[in-house]
């Protein structure tokens, strides 16, 4: 196992009380595999990933639990040690390619930054070559020219490729992708997903993929974790989840999306019932 999350609890405190955003969540990420966390807004999927990176800010607090990454508990590391993990061992891609790049620096500079921080043995020229190589790897044409471009000149898909290039620059063991394709067009989405699968095959990176799009999950996941209101309600291999969903919430979620050629056209879709507390059903963890 590359990473194990054990009994993670992340709470947010406010005058109105405690919000248990992540409430006792455990799952594993094997080496070289893709684990998908699926859930709706507010289910705690993004907070789970931010907790792994230890990027939870006040008023949030990681209450208890363990995040074991290669025999080290990330929650016990000092801030300085954690900074060495971020970007080098575990990196992250965010949802909005339009806002997560710095508009005032060139694309090359921003990829180079990760190398400057984590690969100090390289000199300037070696780093430049590595940046060009990583731009090439994510499928950007004319990488040498693109090195000096500013983000505003790139399209959404290209920016997301640059984000992936930054994340992959130090060849991390794990990549956390928080809805990386939600803001992109379908054809670009397909390209980005292919790219991630490709990189995984070449480099053996484990991927934690966070999404609400079940179609995407079907395309890339090995294991699926279904989250609902801060809890894991079902955990199984991708095949099992789609063939034999057991938890009522998973079933409702799967039935709420139309599938071309299967769902009768213009039929009324099943919906997740807001009046049902799906937590009252037993959890289906396989």
């Amino acid at each position, binding site marked *: 196992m590359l990473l194990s999350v054990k009994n993670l609890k992340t709470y947010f405190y406010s005058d109105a009380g405690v919000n248990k955003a992540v409430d006792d969540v455990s799952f594993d990420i094997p080496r070289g595999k893709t684990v998908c966390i699926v859930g709706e807004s507010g289910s705690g999927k993004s907070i789970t990933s931010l907790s792994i990176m230890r990027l939870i800010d006040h008023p949030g607090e990681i209450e208890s639990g363990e995040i074991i990454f290669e025999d080290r508990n990330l929650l016990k590391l000092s801030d300085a040690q954690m900074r060495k993990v971020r970007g080098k061992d575990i990196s992250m891609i965010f949802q909005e390619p339009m806002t997560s790049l710095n508009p005032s620096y060139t694309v090359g500079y921003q990829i180079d930054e990760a190398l400057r921080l984590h690969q100090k043995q390289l000199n300037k020229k070696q780093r430049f070559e590595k940046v060009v190589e990583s731009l090439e790897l994510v499928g950007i044409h004319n990488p040498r020219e693109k090195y000096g471009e500013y983000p505003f000149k790139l399209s959404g898909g290209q920016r997301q490729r640059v984000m992936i290039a930054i994340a992959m620059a130090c060849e991390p063991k794990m990549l956390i992708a928080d809805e990386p394709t939600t803001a992109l067009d379908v054809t670009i989405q397909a390209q980005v997903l292919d790219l991630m699968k490709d990189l995984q095959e070449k480099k053996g990176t484990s991927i934690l993929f966070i999404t609400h*799009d079940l*179609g995407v999950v079907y395309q890339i996941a090995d294991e699926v974790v279904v989250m609902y209101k801060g809890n894991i309600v079902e955990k199984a291999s991708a095949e099992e989840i789609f063939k034999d969903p057991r938890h009522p919430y998973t079933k409702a979620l799967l039935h709420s*999306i139309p599938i071309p050629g299967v769902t009768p056209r213009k039929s*009324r879709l099943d919906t997740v019932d807001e009046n049902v507390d799906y937590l009252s059903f037993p959890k289906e963890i396989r």
Partner: protein
Amino acid sequence: MSEIIYEIKDLKKYYEINLGLFKKPKIIKAVNGISFNVKKGEILSLVGESGCGKSTTAKLILKIEEPTGGEILFEGKDITKFKGHELEEYRKKVQIIFQYPYSSLNPRWKVGKIIGEPLKLNTNMSKKEIKERVLYLMEKVGMHPDWYERYPHQFSGGQRQRIGIARALALNPEIIVCDEPVSALDVSIQAQVLNLLLDLQEEFNLTYIFISHDLSVVEHISDRIVVMYFGDIVELKSVDNLFTNPEADYTKKLLSAIPTIKD
């Protein structure tokens, strides 16, 4: 069903971009001579990627933008020539549901006022009549009457989209342009809103012009589909035909890119 309400002929919309004082402006052909019909009571979808001109087409139909060339005939009359009373009447018949339920509602207004606004502006109804009509509309879109006095921020995205739909229905329109009405919503909420749109269409005999980039949704809801690419129509077909027998290369590429759960 086959009665044609819109006849769009060689519609063009160009935008000029100034590159500097002494340079020639660059011309962006957002919509580049497209023609299609909209039939009464159908759901016609416009699909394509960002920048393909689908939203511009919708804006032209709504008469928010004026076309550079071509005609939009609504029940046989060219809407670009509408003025005064005729324009007012047209605006009542054509409504829109926006993509983002967060930014399309006035945060300082209560739900009742938001839904009642079109009635206040366009009809001679008394306050009491307006309130009755608003409550009726809220019931139709599945909202509790107690929510009349609430503000938009007290609702989730799906509920806010219901407010937007009720507002669009207020004046008994014939046509509703739905601009990506579910793309900002969670999957489970998407299903609720799609169900609601289908129910309302049946009940009020509406025509929808549905803009989306989500082909699974489009396949589920549409009668006919217009595929757009860089300002042109590359394919226009019934939904059955398009999905089983796509001809244009771009359509094939688009269809193969949908991530579905089916192998």
